[in-house]
């Protein structure tokens, strides 16, 4: 159980009272307490413990916030950490730009991602039921990262080393990559370890790239198929964090470190998931290069807008077919099956999806 470095501000009914009612009250009292915990603004500062209560009750945030439609809220956590989340509210849905670039970019990025999923796949937000998209910007100090932390987004300002300052909220593919982790959490829930984890990472790169392509109106041929292009800081040379088109070519360092993503199963990097940070949960950011490359091959072979056919196959696979422990083989077989169902058995799409996985050595 986590401890708090400092006590968060109290509301009229303090969170621990609400939690007790949520756990032990009658169904009506429970529902009321859960809604209060969900909607009271000071209680929002305790979404970390709120998340814990929900888990104990076997619920998720979507069980208490089932209102359809896009709702975005952006907070400034003012260089604080997890226990300061979400921070000071800066912009609610429909409100005017705040003037803080990070706030307004996070707002726009969430909107772009929401619209992409809504228009292309008819998905209503992260959970498919209109979950409010909460984002906190200015997380930490020089924090070279952005993440979906189970119930909201956090964005750092970047240090200039890994990422240029202010770039994380500007990069549409990074925003959509992170929000897609949320979608995976509510659907396949791929375990963040080894092959399932590499698939989890890959789906985030795939839909991150597709959201960027959709926002630019680019076909598969026109797209750059790069993740994190143009935002690398001074510690890295190269164009991007990852390339779906040419895994292993995206970045290098002056000291000789380099992108070692494989594009084929023969080069799979079999790291253990042993808690050592240098093993990356069994290489989830490394081996994602293989399913990434399969998607690139399928999408470019099929042609046109990648989100329309290849993207739809991958979306249905993620949201309706895969399970927490699905591996590359299972994912490949599922995409082939889904392609046949959506676009015709033994059709052009199905053959090209199968060929893509064969080219990367999975099938």
């Amino acid at each position, binding site marked *: 159980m986590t401890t708090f470095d400092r006590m968060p501000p109290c509301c009229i009914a303090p969170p621990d009272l609400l939690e007790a009612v949520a756990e032990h009250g009658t169904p009506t009292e429970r529902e009321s307490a859960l809604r209060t915990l969900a909607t009271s603004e000071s209680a929002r500062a305790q979404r970390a413990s709120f998340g814990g209560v929900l888990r104990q009750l076997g619920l998720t945030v979507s069980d208490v916030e089932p209102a359809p439609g896009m709702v975005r809220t952006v907070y400034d956590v003012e260089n604080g950490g997890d226990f300061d989340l979400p921070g000071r509210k800066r912009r609610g849905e429909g409100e005017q730009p705040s003037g803080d670039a990070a706030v307004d970019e996070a707002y726009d990025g969430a909107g772009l991602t929401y619209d992409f999923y809504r228009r292309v796949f008819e998905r209503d937000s992260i959970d498919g039921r209109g979950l409010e998209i909460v984002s906190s910007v200015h997380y930490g100090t020089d924090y070279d990262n*952005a*993440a979906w932390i189970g119930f909201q987004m956090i964005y750092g300002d970047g240090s200039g*080393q890994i990422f240029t300052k202010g770039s994380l909220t500007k990069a549409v593919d990074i925003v959509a990559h992170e929000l897609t*982790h949320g979608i995976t959490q509510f659907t396949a829930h791929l375990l963040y370890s080894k092959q399932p984890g590499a698939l989890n990472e890959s789906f985030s790169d795939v839909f991150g790239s597709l959201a960027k392509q959709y926002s630019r109106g680019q076909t598969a041929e026109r797209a750059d198929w790069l993740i*994190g292009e143009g935002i690398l800081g001074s510690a890295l040379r190269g164009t991007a964090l990852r390339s779906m088109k040419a895994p292993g070519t995206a970045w290098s360092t002056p000291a000789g470190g380099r992108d070692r993503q494989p594009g084929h199963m023969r080069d799979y*990097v079999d790291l253990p998931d042993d808690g050592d*940070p240098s093993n990356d949960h069994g290489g989830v950011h490394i081996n994602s290069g293989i399913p990434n490359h399969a998607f690139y091959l399928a999408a470019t072979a099929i042609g046109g807008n990648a989100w329309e056919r290849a993207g739809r196959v991958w979306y249905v696979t993620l949201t309706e077919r895969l399970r927490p422990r699905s591996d590359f083989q299972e994912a490949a077989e599922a995409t082939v099956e889904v392609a046949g169902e959506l676009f015709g058995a033994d059709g052009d799409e199905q053959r090209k999806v199968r060929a893509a996985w064969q080219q990367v050595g999975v099938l």
Partner: protein
Amino acid sequence: MKVSIVRGGGVAGLVTVTTVDSASLAPDDEAELRARVERAGLAGAPERREGTGERPDRFDYELTVEDGGHMLTTRAREGDLSGALRALISYVTSLPGRQEQVGPPG
């Protein structure tokens, strides 16, 4: 005293290793480093974790302190860091005398 911090994960999936040797620090900085190490209260053995949990793209840390022949290592996840550990990490990773290396996992 040598302090080494390995950070993995994040959206970039990079491994950053930051090391500091107190011998290369000014006396005030060395004192501050020792104080923060003391306050962090590192455990004696690395924590072994199966199923590292659902924290995509968050950072994972391993800290090693070597002092007078003794070595202490601990692992921690961003989001679980104690205030003292966080303070030690942020200090070490901003010290001018530090060495830093970025590379891929593995």
